[in-house]
């Protein structure tokens, strides 16, 4: 019986160690989450201002209509998938991938081809496993992703749009609802959907003065717009990752606590049983001598 209680004690110690690790990870994730959220907030004005400018452009009567603003046939679809580099963040990545697979199937049933551009190690591993036409990939963006790290990836997709290899571009990422909730979402990047709210009232007929010319200026604008949206999605996803990890680690810590409680109970029972057995052995031994 003494052997059993020793074994349980060993188990309790090992779970306590695990609990210490998950607790530490929870606290690290909490600290990183705050910074990730600040980065997310800091990236919003850029996209807002870009949307404002795009709204103005949609209102203008430019001599040059940018191809990204023209409706597409949805036959050659590009999908940018934003995931995390590391795991241990609950179902964050898997929920997103499931959502992606569903959309990809839907598009393929409608006769569209799908090309993928991946961000993050988890997406790379996943699509290597399930297959898919992956045309670009970036990993190791770290906790503080930089906008310039995404330039290459976006460029690949924009080049394909310009050459007609793609006609539509989507992005799949997690939406930060609050610390407890993250929601996978798929958004259309190209054709650019002009925000109805941005269609303010404007002078009836006007156009910009462009420098160096309308095509270059609008091209740069569209390019930065898509990059801005992708960067926004990446920092938002980073905030999601940290908060999902924090929650996952908190659950793990709580579960470890529960298991420790149960094992402690079993340990106490085993110890009591061992003592009872010992006493009864002594008593019966004494009785045998007396008898």
């Amino acid at each position, binding site marked *: 019986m003494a052997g059993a209680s020793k074994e349980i004690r060993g188990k309790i110690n090992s779970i306590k160690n695990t609990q210490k690790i998950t607790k530490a990870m929870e606290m690290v994730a909490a600290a990183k989450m705050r910074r990730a959220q600040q980065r997310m907030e800091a990236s919003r004005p850029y996209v807002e201002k870009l949307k404002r400018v795009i709204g103005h452009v949609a209102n203008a009567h430019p001599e040059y209509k940018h191809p990204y603003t023209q409706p597409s046939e949805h036959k050659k679809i590009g999908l940018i998938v934003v995931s995390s580099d590391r795991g241990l963040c609950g179902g964050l990545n898997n929920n997103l991938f499931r959502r992606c697979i569903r959309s990809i199937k839907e598009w393929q049933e409608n006769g569209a081809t799908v090309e993928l551009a991946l961000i993050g190690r988890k997406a790379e591993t996943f699509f290597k496993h399930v297959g898919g036409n992956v045309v670009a990939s970036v990993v190791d963006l770290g906790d503080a992703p*930089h906008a310039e790290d995404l330039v*290459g990836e976006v460029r690949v997709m924009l080049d394909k749009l310009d050459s007609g290899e793609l006609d539509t571009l989507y992005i799949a990422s997690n939406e930060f609802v609050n610390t407890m909730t993250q929601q996978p979402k798929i958004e259309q990047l190209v054709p650019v959907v002009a925000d109805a709210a941005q269609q303010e009232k404007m002078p009836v007929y006007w156009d910009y*003065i462009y420098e*160096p010319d309308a095509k270059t200026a609008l091209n740069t604008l569209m390019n930065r717009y898509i990059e801005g949206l992708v960067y926004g999605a990446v920092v938002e996803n980073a905030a999601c990752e940290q908060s999902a990890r924090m929650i996952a680690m908190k659950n793990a810590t709580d579960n470890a606590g529960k298991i420790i409680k149960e094992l402690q109970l079993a340990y106490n029972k085993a110890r009591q049983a061992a003592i009872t057995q010992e006493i009864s052995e002594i008593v019966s031994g004494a009785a045998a001598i007396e008898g």
Partner: protein
Amino acid sequence: MAVSMQVDIVSAEQPLFSGKANEVFALAAEGEVGILPHHTQFLSTLKPGLVRIVSGDEEEHFFVAGGILEVQPEVVTILADSAIRADDLDEAKALEAKQRAEEAMKKAESEVDFAKAQAELSEAIAQLEAISKLRERLGKRGLTVSH
């Protein structure tokens, strides 16, 4: 105070400036432009250089690595790039992303490094120019800039 307009400078990673101003100077695609309130609609790419915001007696300076300038009669928006951009550099980065996807382990490091060095050089030159311009102007007013 004279007529003023709203000016916003933002980069992808953080907002840089938001407020009222009387005058804005920036380095547009075809040379330096000065924008006053009620300017006609204007859309231009920006070259790496100094953006100057004048409001009353105060002047603020920002170095931008390029970007986009949009002018509406009441609002000026500057969308600053967070890094110097060059077509060949973007292309090199695109190549890198593609190669990574193709799981080819050999990266075109030499090309990327060359393009990177070029971009860094042009950024450094633009920064130096911006600083010397600033020195000149402040020197005229009998002020100095420490750097």
